[in-house]
């Protein structure tokens, strides 16, 4: 087997093994991705990993798409596609099966109870993830103010979030935020 093919297999193996353990959203396996990319396989430096993390957070789409950049560095564009297919394949298949099963019990009492009961629980979890994002995103009082203002505007007005983010981005570019 050529080196290229071997690397491609390695990319596939790394991300296939992470697919079904990425519970609680893709970012829970971020430390594992880091270990595989930097220490285990030496595909990139620590600094490069931090940079591609920022890039993938800022780019549109699910943030776990960072795996495509690991694959890109390791084995080119094909590597990027293989990485994405590997990390999404098994979990997506499982989700699909779960959805099909879910649909069959549309009128079951336990499903009605599930939907009524899980709503409030999820609401609490929604606030929890909001707090987690705030804690990891904001590192200065200006950032907290921007977060608070953005939150209030989004709840109280119909202003598009894109406008709010653009303004915040301009403030950031002028060095106001950090």
């Amino acid at each position, binding site marked *: 087997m050529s080196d290229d093919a071997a690397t491609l297999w390695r990319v596939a193996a790394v991300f296939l093994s992470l697919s079904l353990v*990425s519970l609680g*959203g*893709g970012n829970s396996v971020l430390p594992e991705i880091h270990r595989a990319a930097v220490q285990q396989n030496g595909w990139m430096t620590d600094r490069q990993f931090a*940079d*591609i993390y920022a*890039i993938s957070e*800022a*780019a*549109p*789409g*699910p*943030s*776990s*798409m960072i795996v*495509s*950049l690991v694959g890109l*560095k390791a084995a080119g564009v094909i590597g*990027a596609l293989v990485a994405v297919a590997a990390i*999404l394949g098994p*979990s*997506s298949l*499982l*989700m*699909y099966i779960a959805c099909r099963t879910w649909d069959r019990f549309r009128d079951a009492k336990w499903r*009605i*109870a*599930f*939907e*009524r*009961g*899980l*709503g*409030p*629980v*999820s*609401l*609490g*979890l929604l*606030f*929890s993830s*909001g*707090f987690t*994002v705030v804690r990891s*995103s904001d590192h200065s009082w200006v*950032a907290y103010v*921007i*977060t*608070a203002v953005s*939150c209030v505007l*989004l709840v109280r007005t119909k202003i598009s*979030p*894109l406008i709010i*983010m653009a303004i*915040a*981005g*301009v403030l*950031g*570019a002028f*060095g106001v*935020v950090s």
Partner: protein
Amino acid sequence: MSDGSTPIPRPSLGALAVCFLQIALSSFGGGLSAWTRRIVIEDRHWMTDQEFLTALTITRLFPGPNQVNMAIYVGVRFRGFAGALASLAGLLVVPLTILISLGYAYFHFHHVPALQATLTGVVAAAAGMALSMGFKIVGNYLRQWDAMLFGAAAFVGVTVLKISLPLVVLVLAPLAMAWFWPRGDAPPEQS
């Protein structure tokens, strides 16, 4: 919020793909769940808030990125397997193309410091958006003390006591299900 009598439209495969493309492209700097709620519920009325919350919890309980799972959930709900593929394509193809191009540029030409500064601002605003989602939905539950109690318990468990999310759900979900179990044959009321 719609009452049960409003018929739910059944979007086409193209509409599903466009919907998730819109969600993906709106989410510069994160906040995909908030965008999903805004685009699927506020703009298109494809689901009620309650169904969205259920979907959100299912997508978070299963492995895989929440938004990818959400695309599968919505796609399957309206159009089965083809629907899931259409939603996934909408969510992933364009963002991946952009990200791989950015990555390519980064590995070949290196990074721009001004980008980092801009990002700190965008990320702060995005955090506000993540926070706003709960506040928008909480209105549906404010008058139900039991629902508020379950919500508060989940929040305290994860954020204050730092218990892992799957464990919190495994404990609270059965309790909430038992509490809200439908009694009699009356259809489930929507508030």
